[in-house]
């Protein structure tokens, strides 16, 4: 599984595919204070990006991948 949901933290690992988007949205809606950990994430599918951009959850850890980090800078509030 590319996203591991913990109590209030969603951990993104490696490549997060399009099929995760629906779950991610549901989880973020259920956990408005949920944070996301992107440390080991390499790429997220655009559908996930869209969810994150719409909700802008707190980012607990930014991706190590610098390029991805730059792209996700839009999530900073």
């Amino acid at each position, binding site marked *: 599984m590319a996203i591991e949901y913990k109590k209030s933290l969603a951990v993104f690992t490696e490549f997060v595919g399009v099929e995760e*988007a629906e779950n991610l949205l549901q989880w973020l809606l259920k956990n408005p204070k949920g944070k996301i950990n992107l440390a080991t994430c390499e790429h997220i599918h655009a559908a996930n990006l*869209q969810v994150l951009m719409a909700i802008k959850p707190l980012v607990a850890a930014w991706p190590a991948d610098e390029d*991805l980090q730059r*792209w996700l800078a839009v999530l900073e509030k």
Partner: protein
Amino acid sequence: MNALLEQFLSESRDFLQGIGEKLMQLESDPESIPLMTELFRFVHTLKGNSGLFDFPEMTRVLHASEDLMDAVRHGRVSYSQDLTDQLLDAMDFVGILMDEIETTGRIGNSHATNSVELTKSLRELLAAASTESEAHAATPHEISDIDHPSVDQVLEEFAAVEVDFANDTTASFGEPAFELNEAVAMALYRHAIGGSRVFWVEYIPEPECFFKGEDPFYLSRQVPAVLWHQSLLQKDIPSLAEMDVYSSQLVFQLLTIATQEELDDIFRYVPDQIQRIEIPALAFVVPFGSEHDDTIDDEFITRTVGFINDGNLERASHSIRTMLELSAPELWSSSLLRWAQLIIELEPDNALIQCALINQLRTHEPLDLVALTQDISSKSASVDSHLPNADLPHEHDEHEATNSEASHTDATLMASFYTVLTAQKNVLSVPASPWLAGRMKSVATTLIATYRATHQVDEIEHIEHALQQALADNTSQPLLAWIDKVLDSAPELSDIQEAAPIEMPIEQSTQEVSVATEEVILDPSSKFGRRVEDTSPHFGRRAEDTTTVVSKTLKVDQEKIDRLMNLIGEMVVAKNALPYLANRAETVFGVRDLSREIKAQYAVINRVAEEMQDTIMQVRMMPVSFIFQRFPRMVRDISRKLGKEVELVLEGESTEADKNIIEALSDPLIHIVRNSLDHGLESPEVRVAAGKNATGKLLIRATQESDRVLIEIIDDGRGINPNVIKQKAYEKGLIDESALERLSDEEAVNLVFAAGFSTADVISDLSGRGVGMDVVRSAVERINGTVGIESEVGKGTRLYLSLPLSMAVTNVMIIESNEQIFGVPMDMVVETVRVPRVQLSSIKQKQTTVLRGRIVPLLSLNELLALPQEQVPNEDDEFATLVVRVHGEHVGIVVDDFRETVDIILKPMSGILGGLGGFSGAALLGDGSVLMVLNPRELI
């Protein structure tokens, strides 16, 4: 290249050929629904096939063509000449792509643009003609945005951007807007000045893109050399709970120095979803930082501007550096100074921008990016163009007219001053849009900066006043009026403009928006047209290839077909076993009902097997054009060699026959055609003397007559004189004296087929060796064909070959003799009769009988086969007689009894038996026994 691709290519070429033909046919019959449907099917299949491979350029064009065809098919779009042109164009394009795939294995990036353009023009056709058109799919606006094939010039670039402003009704692409920091902006500026083209790319994925397996984010990340990027949501999501995660709302924007080719390649699947605009270098020149908490004294500004105008850049740079050292680096003014320094370094000749920038220190007004750049671009354009034209002669007038105290301002600057005014006026003339207020502000700012640069500070107040008024009324009128006033007060302006024709395009670019748009549309299509021309040799080559492509239609290995043939042969044999079984059920086991059922079942299997056989034979069918196609060249060569003029007419080239037949026919036909050319047709002089057209006519015609193919070779030459033939044949000892008298003209003419016969007195390299026609006859007979000749002296000769459509299955009649069974090919059997013993008569020790008024010689089969037994008559003392036709004569073969006829697969004899005369082969019967098939020709 893998096998699948190979097959795709060869198949697709056939499709293209088919589409081309259908389009042509449609042209003469535009209402034909079946044609339309078939055409649609072709395009549809081709599109589907192309989708198997990674050829988006091809698929896109085909998809558009398919949509168009579908619309036409359903009558939503009416058929037109234009439509055919477009579709043919599209198919030519696909053909080019295929050529490229065949040679390089892939499609070059260069085709992406053409593909998009073709698709658009196809879609436009659809949109224009369809009542429920989705007009926005192909608005000129979009086209102008996506591609600027040759837009290097800043002016043209901005003409397009202006289009954006004016036509902003349906487009989702906005104008380029980016918030950079100074470092990135400077880097971009450096790149742009350094010769790299900086592209603004906006990528708005279509909402359904996720369902197509696309990942727009991934795609955006693939763009190389990105210096700035951001992702946005098109609009705020109204309710998060109802958000459709699988409908893309994303917008990606980036600034990159990747090449146009790289961008085209990355976005080749979604070219209609991106906007790519080249950004001029100066657009990045924006000072950053906090603005109003610093002051730079006028003294510095005036001094630096003075240095710049004097061309003393070193001192200007030095003074800026000193000022920078004194100021805090995060200040807006510092940023501006850094920019000024950078521009002095990279664009030392661009004094105007340097001045404008420095003067900004006085106004503290941020300059509108687009307007500023446009001023500067028009300034720089005019500076370039004015230098040689509007030079010093105007200096004096201008000073007077403007009453300027800026005595050191040179004429170039003044000319530019008016250019700026005119440009600003044009900016304001653009029809109203949401940006009006911002635009007016930017115009005012520019004007103020311009006046400062020309030291006419007292005018600034008026401008500000006009701006206030304009903003209050939300109309550009006050500003326009002000500019007009200034322009009017400068009577020599028209001189400047006349002297500087370069200004006209600037005006046109903003005012004649539609013209600019049209040009953008027209340009690509004309480019495509040119490209097609360029590659016309390719088309030529393909056209030549088509004949081989057609013959290649038999894609399956022939061995496989042969195997299929054998299998169906066995099937036929196995099927034939059923009647035997039925017979046994009745006679041996006495179950009549079962017998009847078996027979009923047999009928079904028989039907299926026959159909199958038929189909397989169809597979083996080839058009005679396969051999006909070589004749035009051959006839031309030979007639040239012989000094004859010959017009060759080919008819019925699409007539089909079994592959083996066609192949076996090739050599005999060449013989015949050579003969006709050599012996038949006369030289032009002889023809004219005989009152004929100097050009001889040679007609080769193929027709199908029931289950046979008839090939005729007809010439209008001198014909064959039967007497000469008889004489020659007699001389060569082919016939005896009695025959000389007896032979009819027709029989005599057919003597040319006798072995060793030749009429030519001189042996040439073409004919005359006496191995001509008899070889033809034996070759034709080998494939169960017949050959004949008719001729009329002075009128011409008609030679005909009659061939079976297929030689795979032979229909034979089974006969009984000496308690053995034999087969006789049905096509040789004329009739079967039972001749009473009393009707037999002997002529010259040979048995004969009279059938229908003609004497028929009778031969005993046992005798022919050297069997010692007498033929057995039936109870009524009648002899079973099989009348066969051999070389045009009827001969009766007396046998013991007749049986049924069967279809058999005739296997030629091989090995030791191969040399056995009198038999054409053997076949397996349904009960497993072997049937020897006689060859009466050899037997008699």
